[in-house]
């Protein structure tokens, strides 16, 4: 057990449990927002675990989650667009808090590791995570309703 693993545990125990609670209870609008925030909660924890166990290849898991999580949310936004039309679900304070958490974790890992290709990879993951989450949140809130085919 080291500091990285402890941080990942706190992150998973706090953010992951909160996301699970949000997904399993309440109206659909709340559930879909919580489902979107799951990516932001779990992805930084995976990065912290990779650092904690000293296995850089585990970072690929976080990369894949950062890429596919928002895509999954976009599918939900499309499929549930009729149900969510009147609700415009959104939780912007939470969304930006999660984005800040992701940025803080990525920055901490960048500072901890030697600069090089791994640093660039971390920054790519961070950019994917934050931009994907913000775009998916905006899609859920109906921000792209006027877009052709959206």
């Amino acid at each position, binding site marked *: 057990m080291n500091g990285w693993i402890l941080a990942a545990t706190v992150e998973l125990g706090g953010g992951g449990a909160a996301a699970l609670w949000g997904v399993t209870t309440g109206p659909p609008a709340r559930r879909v927002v919580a489902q979107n925030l799951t990516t932001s909660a779990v992805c930084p924890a995976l990065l912290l675990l990779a650092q904690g166990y000293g296995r*850089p*290849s585990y970072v*690929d898991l976080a*990369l894949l989650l950062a890429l596919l999580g928002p895509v999954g949310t976009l599918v939900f936004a499309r499929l549930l667009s009729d149900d969510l039309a009147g609700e415009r679900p959104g939780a912007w304070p939470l969304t930006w808090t999660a984005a800040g958490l992701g940025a803080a974790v990525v920055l901490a890992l960048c500072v901890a590791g030697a600069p090089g*290709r791994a640093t*660039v*990879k971390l920054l*790519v993951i961070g950019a994917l995570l934050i931009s994907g989450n913000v775009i998916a949140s905006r899609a859920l809130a109906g921000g792209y309703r006027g877009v052709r085919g959206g």
Partner: protein
Amino acid sequence: MTRRTAPRAALLAAGELLAWWAVLALLWLVLISTVDTLERIVGASCAAVGALLARTGRRAVSWR
């Protein structure tokens, strides 16, 4: 009668493909664990295919 592509359009297309290829090849080099000759060859090939797909997708979205 054969339709000839304007040189300017061909140049623009080549430039766009080259830009996509450069970005995708760079991404490949960043994301792999060890850089060696085989990885470079495979990465360059995949980036070439990806560049074609990216341009096709971009044209499909922007109706041109």
